[in-house]
């Protein structure tokens, strides 16, 4: 039954994927496309020493070296499709062969994702009792992951290799759930060296491995038993991390290019918010600041001339100052992020609840960094949504939070697809995924998962969508204030995401509390 359900979900996934490839006829050109083409060209045509210095194109190499090696190996296949794409000077080169190759490469690397989904499904705990194929948690998890709306549009309509990367993440999580911690650690280190954004969840990994793997036994009350520390395991972990790091960064350290690489990886010149505000705390902060400044001007408390001219609601990525509330610098966001994930990390140190506690902490870290991070892209919400799917099919409360988070998170991705031709596709796919997730989880947990307030909020999303796509373009403000739909979407979604974050934290701390109670 398990394999059958997986195969069914997989088949639908493949069909949807291949349906997406018909987009190869439609030149849906996103900048990510050019970014990756440029990286293929850089890694193929230039020697290694020039990779992180090259800046003919504005899209410089800003992922860690292992990803550069990945692009290098891809470029060897690419040259059979179209040699011209590998010339660095060919900026914005889009022959049909190039597009076909790029799209196919994403689809092929998705195999990693599919394998990871299979492994996750194996680790799902299920209740007893016969269920039909569609109601099995196994199948629901496979469907929620394979048909994830966010992943589909980000990878296959836009263009990134997230399927591949999230596959590695989920595989690492699955290995931990299965108790194979060394493999999990290896996979995570590889992942870190492929895309350094996963540094955000490194604390969860670090503390979990230190606490649950290096200390082989716990005291009866769950606290640390210092005597059971195993240096062998620590050394094993350390060697894995160091060897992978050496493999990826080694050549650049040897050439003395480490500072240059790091400066490319962490460009803090970009602003607090992305061009379109990710629905996090800073979006709300900006909103409040803007509202206060407008109010202040209206009430004649402030002088218009004294306010900074830079508009943070313009579509450009610039540094800007807040007018009334204190400005936010990168270090402040770092401190906020660390503060937000501290309780979760501490809780798995004090009362580790095995791999599932680690998974919960991982989701909290991902979500916390999304909420408070510097220059967060709205795609980063997927880092929280995908691992959370595993928890969602196992517990009723998690399913409720999941539905809230996933619907708002996915809706916040809508502004990424803004052309008229993409409108039906994104609406149809969103409807498909939302309808499926709601009905399948409702059936699994037998009953309604959301309270009326939450349901009203989610229905409000429909109103926001109609407002932004239909009503606003026909109104006179479309030309004078074109950013308003983006603003509305971002702020509305940040309410939902913040709410889910709080609920998640509450459930984590409540579990921590009940554990403590058990000891007394």
């Amino acid at each position, binding site marked *: 039954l398990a394999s059958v359900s997986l195969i069914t979900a997989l088949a639908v996934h493949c069909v949807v994927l291949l349906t997406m490839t018909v987009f190869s006829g439609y030149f849906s050109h996103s900048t990510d496309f050019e970014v990756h083409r440029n990286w293929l060209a850089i890694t193929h045509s230039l020697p290694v020493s020039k990779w992180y210095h090259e800046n003919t194109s504005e899209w410089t190499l800003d992922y860690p070296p292992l990803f550069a090696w990945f692009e290098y190996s891809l470029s060897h296949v690419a040259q059979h499709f179209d040699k011209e794409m590998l010339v660095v000077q060919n900026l914005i080169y889009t022959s049909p062969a190039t597009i076909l190759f790029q799209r196919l490469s994403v689809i092929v690397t998705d195999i990693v994702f599919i394998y990871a989904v299979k492994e996750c499904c194996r680790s799902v705990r299920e209740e007893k009792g016969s269920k039909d194929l569609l109601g099995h948690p196994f199948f629901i998890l496979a469907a929620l992951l394979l048909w994830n709306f966010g992943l589909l549009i980000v990878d296959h309509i836009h263009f990134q290799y997230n399927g591949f990367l999230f596959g590695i993440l989920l595989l690492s999580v699955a290995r931990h759930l299965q108790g194979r911690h060394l493999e999990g650690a290896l996979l995570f280190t590889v992942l870190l060296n492929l895309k350094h954004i996963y540094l955000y969840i490194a604390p969860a990994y670090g503390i979990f491995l230190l606490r649950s793997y290096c200390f082989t036994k716990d005291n009866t009350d769950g606290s640390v038993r210092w005597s059971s520390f195993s240096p062998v395991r620590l050394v094993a972990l350390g060697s894995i991390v160091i060897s992978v790091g050496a493999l990826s960064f080694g050549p650049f350290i040897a050439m003395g290019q480490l500072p240059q690489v790091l400066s490319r990886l962490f460009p803090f010149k970009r602003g607090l918010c992305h061009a379109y505000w990710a629905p996090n705390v800073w979006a709300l902060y900006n909103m409040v600041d803007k509202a206060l400044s407008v109010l202040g001007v209206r009430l004649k408390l402030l002088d218009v001339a004294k306010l900074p001219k830079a508009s943070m609601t313009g579509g450009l990525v610039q540094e800007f100052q807040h007018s009334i509330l204190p400005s936010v610098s990168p270090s402040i966001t770092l401190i906020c992020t660390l503060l937000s994930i501290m309780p979760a990390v501490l809780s798995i140190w004090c009362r580790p609840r095995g791999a599932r506690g680690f998974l919960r902490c991982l989701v909290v870290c991902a979500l916390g960094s999304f909420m408070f991070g510097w220059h967060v892209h709205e795609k980063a919400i997927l880092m929280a949504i995908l691992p959370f799917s595993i928890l969602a099919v196992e517990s009723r409360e998690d399913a409720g939070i999941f539905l809230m988070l996933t619907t708002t998170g996915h809706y916040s991705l809508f502004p990424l697809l803004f052309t008229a*031709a993409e409108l039906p596709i994104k609406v149809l796919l969103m409807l498909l995924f939302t309808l499926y997730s709601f009905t399948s989880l409702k059936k699994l947990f037998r009953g309604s998962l959301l309270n009326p307030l939450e349901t009203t909020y989610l229905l409000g999303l429909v109103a926001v969508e109609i407002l932004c796509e239909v009503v606003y373009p026909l109104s006179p403000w479309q030309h004078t204030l074109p950013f308003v739909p983006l603003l509305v979407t971002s702020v509305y979604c940040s309410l939902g995401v913040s709410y889910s974050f709080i609920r998640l934290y509450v459930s984590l701390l409540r579990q921590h509390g009940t554990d403590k109670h058990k000891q007394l």
Partner: protein
Amino acid sequence: MENWSLVSICVLFGLTARWAVSLNSYSGAGKPPMFGDYEAQRHWQEVTYNLPVHEWYFNTTDNNLNYWGLDYPPLTAYHSLLCAHDHGFDFCWVLVADLLIYIPAVVLYSFYLSEGSNKKKVCTVLCILLYPGLILIDYGHFQYNSISLGLALWGVVVLGLGWDVLGSLAFVLSLNYKQMELYHSLPFFCYLLGKCFKQGLAGRGLFLLVKIAVTVLVTFALCWLPFLSDPGQILQVVHRLFPVGRGLFEDKVANTWCSLNVLIKIKTILSTDTQLYFSLTTTLLAILPSSIKLLMKPTLWQFKLALVNSSLAFFLFSFQVHEKSILLPALPVCLLLNDLPLPAIWFLQASTFSMLPLFLKDGLLVPYVVTSLAFLFFSIYLLSAFEHCSEDKLRLGCLRHLPSLIPGSFYFSITAMAGLSFMSVALAPPDQLPDLFPLLVSVFSYLHFLGLLLYFNIVQIAEPLQSVRKNQKKSN
């Protein structure tokens, strides 16, 4: 999961597939001087919007009939007029038409007129909605077949539920949208006439007959209202609808005459009139058995089979048939997916394959491959096609040894189709035979259609007249 959510998911999935195909290049994109069907639709919108009604079908200085002249009945013209008012994204109109007419008919058919568990009905909806031929022609090539086929399907559904007058109304509307629906007209006629006979001509039967006749006449009159004033108008429209001057067949099509032409050049041997009479006679002979059987036993099951047999016979033997007309038999075969899964899937796949040269011309190779694979996978898996291969299930009581050969032949056939598709794309034909691959495709499809015509005829005729089948819905 509850039915409505499963069905919604299937419908959404079908809509997504349709929209994705439409975003591919469309027929005639950037190909002067005639461009393609998309240009035809756009031209009709222009003609109907700007010219008065009595000039729509005439060759005037404003309306050059050689450049995509209007050659469908009045309802298409009115529809173009409607579309002309809102020049939005034209593909939206096809999607809207599908959503309003075709898809509800499919859902209603699956839930009220087909047998099996709820799961089976949802699977039927999905498989019918995934039929590649209709998706590719309507959204890739760009036409509005879903309106005429949808209305015809409404006719079937409504007749199946017992409302004869409404059913005939729906079919007449469908006929007035595209004249190719004449392929389906004989079964409708025989079914309704048979029902009237069954109810006794001296009483309720006669009353029913009169009601239906009146409905048909009134609907025709309403549709043709602007043209009724002048007999010359009516003649001209008919002349545009049935271009008998155009010859036995055009291009490569998977019917008898084109395939026969390979061996004997009948187009040159016989005169046009002889060709006309020849094709007329053979068509009539081919549809006679099925129609008579339907007259004698007007049940829904016989009706569905007769629709298949009649339209397929017309396709194979009629005059001036286009390859797209295979959609007309394909619709009733979709209705048989539940009862005879394997033959239905085989036919539907062959029908899609037969249109391959057209798809290649339109640049629809990738959608063709994807939708065919999806359709095959889902229909074979969800409808358990290979488990229904026994003698009994295939209703082939007389031919005992045939069923064991069928799975093997099916695989061989699909592989051959895949091989031919690959060759059509990858290889260049030899110089002496430039049309080699389209010809191979059409002859191969023709053999399938001929075989399946025989099969469906046997199934329909072999059924005893007075049977008490346990698993058939009550005949109405």
